[in-house]
């Protein structure tokens, strides 16, 4: 079989197109929707798996429900440097960054103690990180209840209290 003439031209054209396609895909974004990035999905399945955030003893609070601009993540720890280190660790995976807040030892123990054990929901996530990490997802009602309890632990006028109150405002606004 002889390949020539038009055949070679088509092969050359195909190679050129392939090369340009490769260049286009490596040098810039693909114009279509790649297979690993679905454009649609059915909601209502299991919540996404959550990876541990930090091994420093801290309490991390994330709003998981409805939002426009994603709210910052709150990081509470007993002591300023612990809070800063934990926030720095969380920052690496949070595009909006983490907001650290140092609280006293008693307030921190109170915060941890207030975390419900068997809750489930999707509005707010509370994580106790460190040696014995655990994480709970709370619905709006449980979330508000926890935020109120947490506020009482740290004292409402404190910086930590104001942060928790802001999160409560955002939670309340959720439909």
């Amino acid at each position: 079989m002889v390949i020539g003439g038009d055949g070679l031209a088509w092969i050359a054209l195909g190679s050129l197109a392939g090369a340009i396609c490769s260049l286009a895909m490596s040098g810039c974004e693909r114009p279509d929707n790649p297979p690993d990035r679905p454009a649609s999905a059915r909601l209502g399945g299991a919540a996404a798996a959550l990876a541990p955030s930090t091994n420093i003893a801290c309490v991390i609070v994330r709003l998981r429900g409805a939002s426009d601009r994603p709210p910052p993540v709150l990081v509470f720890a007993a002591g300023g440097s612990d809070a800063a280190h934990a926030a720095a660790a969380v920052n690496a995976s949070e595009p909006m960054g983490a907001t650290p807040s140092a609280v006293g030892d008693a307030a921190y123990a109170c915060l941890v103690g207030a975390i419900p054990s068997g809750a489930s929901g999707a509005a707010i996530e509370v994580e106790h990180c460190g040696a014995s990490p655990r994480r709970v997802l709370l619905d709006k009602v449980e979330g508000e209840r926890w935020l109120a309890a947490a506020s009482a632990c740290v004292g409402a006028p404190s910086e930590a209290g104001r942060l928790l109150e802001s999160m409560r405002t955002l939670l309340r606004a959720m439909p």
Partner: protein
Amino acid sequence: MNRSTIGRCVAAAVAICAGATMSLGALTGINKEIKCGDTLLATVNFAVPTLYASGATGGITVSGSATKTAAFTGKMRWVQMIKTNQPLNTNTPANTPYFDPGELDPTGNDFPFYWNENLQGRDGNNYAGLWVQNKFSNGGNTLSFFDEPKRTWTGAAINWQAELSLVCWDMTTNVLGVLWTGTYGFNITAGGNLTINGITEMAVGGTFLTQAAIDQRFGDVYTISTDCENCIPTPAAAGLLAFAGVFAARRRRAA
């Protein structure tokens, strides 16, 4: 001067690859040079958006950046407006565009920009991760953008659409020169099907960012303009910059 914008890789890839193995889907990235006449002012880059789904909560994840050139004048900022049937942190009625973040968002500021102008939010707390000063890189020339809007499906249909604009902000006159606008969003059907779309370029200024909208929210403070000449130095300023450059070069040679 007329605005001239030039798309590069994405347009080329669509044209050449569409007939082969790929097809143009609903999701696209952006790689765009923003020009004013012959002057390159900035480059806008966005990755292909991704779908966010966790339990009954769904939305879209969008990330990108804008990099300005030396010709860009004023402060580079993102302005985002949202239209949804489930507005959040605002008194704006459903299906009416509002500025993101809304006026009731305790983490926001009273500026029309997406990132906060002040470290301190409306609630008095410091939010370093939302502060525009922390969103610049590349020697202050690249401004990042990230958003992950979402809503929780409870059985009713939900629509959410954003129009995002890159602007230059003249802090003296409060003129916002709009240089580029794109749109993205998502829909959730009553049956719980989530579909995302974007990010798609649209006519500069879009349809949400109007003078009436910014006046209503911020009073008679800002002027919206789609004339790109607002974002390049005036001839006098350009002359001064050139003189300063020559002067600096002479000083370097003398040293």
